[in-house]
């Protein structure tokens, strides 16, 4: 790792991992996350997000590929990586029978912190995360939101340069989610902490992540800011509702021959067609379907959302995704 790569705080290069029974979790996954940003790995369950985080946090080893965190090679120097990262897994990670304060103190001690420095840091975090009143209660008595806050506080004791969170908002109520995202945004903005978060919540990635990488079948299929990803879809989507799946497939084939349609995908009895300008292309779209003799139940035009991006890259339409160039 040379000094020129220090701007990329997290870097994954061609990661491959196959589990027992030929389950291919990662298939050449690569990305870079820059310092002081929130980087979201967005994808459905089983896409390879958790495996990626496990490799980056030194828990698992890839079959092939390389990765670095804060410029340190994850495979060659896992011990060094561990001292500069904080990692919150999908499970809590707090020892249930220890109090909030004891959990924080233990984590700090394991990172070599001692005495007044450690006590001050623990008190500071308990205050910041609203856990003062619960500090002397066992973690098993905490509510879901409190426990998540404790989880994040715990991995911040040693002031990590890079923070990993695997599906951190799963199971939290809306208030808990907003509170957690405020904390993460604050960390990235004020402290310059690089935050890598995995999520399958589109709206969260859309709202809070500086950059989003869409993960599907073990690889990044698209990457950029939410706006970049949406505008990469070029235009609007036209949604056609057909009587059944068979006719939806016929309509899709008909639409693939319409020159103005960049891409068409069938999802059940609905076909989504991607066009440059929805309202102006609508007549041509309908004419194309009509020419094939397929009856249309309803039609609507929508501006692209991250939903469309997601469906386009990670949904059932993925098979056709390779045909269009983003």
């Amino acid at each position: 790792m040379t000094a020129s790569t220090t701007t990329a705080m997290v870097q994954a290069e061609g990661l491959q991992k196959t589990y027992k029974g030929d389950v291919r979790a990662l298939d050449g996954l690569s990305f870079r996350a820059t310092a002081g940003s929130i980087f979201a790995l967005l994808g459905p369950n089983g896409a390879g997000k958790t495996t990626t985080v496990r490799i980056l946090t030194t828990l698992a080893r890839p079959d092939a590929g390389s990765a670095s965190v804060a410029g340190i090679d994850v495979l060659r120097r896992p011990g060094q990586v561990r001292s500069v990262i904080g990692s919150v897994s999908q499970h809590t990670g707090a020892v249930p029978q220890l109090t909030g304060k004891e959990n924080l103190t233990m984590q700090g001690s394991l990172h070599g912190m001692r005495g007044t420095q450690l006590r001050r840091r623990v008190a500071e975090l308990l205050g910041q995360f609203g856990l003062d009143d619960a500090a002397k209660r066992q973690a098993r008595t905490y509510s879901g939101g409190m426990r998540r806050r404790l989880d994040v506080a715990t991995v911040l004791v040693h002031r990590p340069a890079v923070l990993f969170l695997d599906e951190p908002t799963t199971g939290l109520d809306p208030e808990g989610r907003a509170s957690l995202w405020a904390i993460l945004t604050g960390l990235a903005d004020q402290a310059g902490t690089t935050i890598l978060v995995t999520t399958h919540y589109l709206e969260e990635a859309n709202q809070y992540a500086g950059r989003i990488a869409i993960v599907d079948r073990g690889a990044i299929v698209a990457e950029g800011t939410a706006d970049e990803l949406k505008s990469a879809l070029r235009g609007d989507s036209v949604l056609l509702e057909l009587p059944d799946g068979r006719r939806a497939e016929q309509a899709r084939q008909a639409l693939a021959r319409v020159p103005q349609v960049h891409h068409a995908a069938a999802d059940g009895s609905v076909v989504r067609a991607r066009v440059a300008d929805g309202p102006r292309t609508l007549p041509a779209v309908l004419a194309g379907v009509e020419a094939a003799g397929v009856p249309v139940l309803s039609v609507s035009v929508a501006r692209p959302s991250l939903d469309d991006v997601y469906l386009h890259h990670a949904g059932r339409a993925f098979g056709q995704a390779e045909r269009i160039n983003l």
Partner: protein
Amino acid sequence: MSSQHTALTPDIAQPQVVPAGAAAPGQPTWSDTGSRPGQLRQAWVILTQRYLRQLYRVPVVIFMTLIQPIIWLLLFGALFKKVAEIPGFGGGDYITYLTPGVVIMTAMFSASWTGMAYIEDMQTGVMDRFLTAPVGRGALTAAMLAYQGLTTALQSAIIIAIGWGTGATFPGGAAGIAALIGVSVLIAVAMAGVSNWFALLTRQREALIGASTTLVLPLTFLSGAFLSLQLVPGWIVDVARFNPVNWAASAGRIAVEAHPQWSTVGSYAGFLALAVVVTATAATRAFGSYQRAL
């Protein structure tokens, strides 16, 4: 809720950013196993404290582990009272013969559950938290074994007291009792290593329960823990020769005799120490297997 993150954001201090290829100032570098020798030493103490604190928080566990040996002592003591009259026991009463056996069996039985704590840690995410912290795998094993050793010493002392209360005698005195506690700690730590190893390999509560229950009783009855080996079939004597439980039971029983043969106790203790090294090494290496499955 909202007041706490307005307070949060301005207070967050700068993170430590470690420059590429070099450790942060004031921090020594260490090998890629994730442990510095000094840190390893401190980490195992911190983690041992954690287990002790947890035990203190759930005191019912202590109670449960004492119930069983009391039942063994009272039940077997009464049931086999006449056994000691059979030639081959060399006189003395059965409770005196039985007590060291129960001490060893209980030590092994409790230790066979040690891996449960690992499985619980895997399920709560605590294991991954530790493995992503700069803690050596050796420290994780050492902490668990130290904890098991400490609790076994306490447990054995209590069982010896109960045995004494029910009529057992320890002609060897304090030195003998200390040696008995010592070998009970050795067999417990060796067994804890096996349990941890197995927990990391299988990662399943049910598998550990199955293994523990199938292993502990045969190991106990293929030893001189409850019955003098002079009274059992020859093949059991042959098996017992290689059974660590028999090493511990024999060493413990000899140690509390009036004129113990310390050389025999010593060689048994030496074999047990070797077993500890083997199982602790296997348990530490099993973290690799656990992580490969992740």
